[in-house]
């Protein structure tokens, strides 16, 4: 699809991170000058247990092309158990949104810890790559 390879189109990707692990990982990636595409916009929340599937839907609705939710590894949640609830919730919601016809690449989830700066960089690069491949999002877009 020409739009995807057209250098004019810059994907808009929202990344929700938990404060204690993934955000720290992102910070460390920045600190170490690991480069990753600037198309991702990071929003910090206290814990991945806070992640609400409606954010993903609303992001796609309001113009995002993809969303990533990322938190601490299971067993390492700063608050103990938040990410366990997140895991169940997002697994169900990913299935649900695919059932409605949203491409699986557009709603991704990961576990990235505070010291995994390399992983953060790798996940961001892969994310932008995936979104570039599937192209601009037209589904669930609000009427303008």
């Amino acid at each position, binding site marked *: 699809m020409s739009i995807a390879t057209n250098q004019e189109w810059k994907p808009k990707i929202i990344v929700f991170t938990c404060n204690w692990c993934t955000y720290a990982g992102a910070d460390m990636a920045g600190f170490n000058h690991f480069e990753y595409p600037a198309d991702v916009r990071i929003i910090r929340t206290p814990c991945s247990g806070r992640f609400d*599937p*409606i954010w993903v*839907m*609303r992001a796609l*609705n309001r113009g995002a092309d993809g969303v990533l939710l990322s938190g601490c590894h*299971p*067993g390492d949640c700063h608050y103990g*158990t938040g990410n*366990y*609830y997140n*895991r*169940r*919730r*997002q*697994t*169900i*919601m990913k*299935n*649900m*949104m*695919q*059932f*409605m*016809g*949203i*491409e*699986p690449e557009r709603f*991704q*989830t*990961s*576990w990235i810890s505070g010291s995994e700066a390399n992983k953060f960089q790798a*996940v961001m690069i892969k994310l932008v790559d995936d979104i570039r491949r599937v192209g601009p999002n037209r*589904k*669930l*877009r*609000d*009427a303008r």
Partner: protein
Amino acid sequence: MKEITSKLQEIATRLFNEGKIDVFLAWEKGEQEFQTKSYIAHSVDDVKNIIFNEYSIYNVSNALLKLRDGHEKIGIAVKGCDSRGVVRLLEDLQITRDRLYIIGIPCPGLKDPLAAARSFGGLGKKESDQGLAKKCLECIQPNPVIYDELVGPEQTPRQQGDRFAQVREIEQMSADERYKFWEDTLSTCIRCYACRQVCVACDCRTCIFDEMKPQWVGRETNTTDNMMYHLVKHAHMAGRCIECGECERVCPVGIPLMLLNRKLIKDVGELFGGTEAGLQYTEGAKPALSVFKENDPDNFQ
């Protein structure tokens, strides 16, 4: 059905006389022969209006939501699906067990008063004649799962074949085909919110769709806002839907809502196991998404 009616009246009279209840929730005759509505009896004098007939399909546990803040003792007559609704409310801590005296009625399958009303009222095309309601033909639990007294013989589930057949059919389609299917189906939604009001599991005091600050889902009836509404509503049903089928029954435009609910029931069952929502009451039990196991399926990067 007549015996069940007289049994219900007998039990209600006894409970009122013994002072065990302040109100009794059941059904009463509606205005036309096929209309049976929900009913709250406030005293022994009201008991004569209580009936149970082939149109008593309305989910009475929904009426409990109006009484959740009070202290009255409540007698309630429930069928299989209704009793799952009671379990839902107990698990969600919306009502306490000690306030309820539950009469269980194993359900033989009932007819849909709304379908009869449409045919009789002359609106739109005349529908072919009334057999059992669609939700009754798909019933997996006609016997009450929680009760203090049981009235009537045990019934067999009526669901034939694969409960998730239609879900699997859609899962086989490509992403774009799926999106088109849901776009076409949900674009007819008129956002009347009847599905939300009649649902027992929708027990939030302020619904997310009524929030203005911020407003999560727009009020326009365009396709995307409609899809957002249904996606969000069903997201809140994950692991909580009791499969009573009322939402699909009352929908004025015939949207296959149970298809979305069954997808969630299938996924929750396959991924997390455990009993399905509302199928049994254990004190302190929580819905599937409010608990976790350390070895839950994990496909995160």
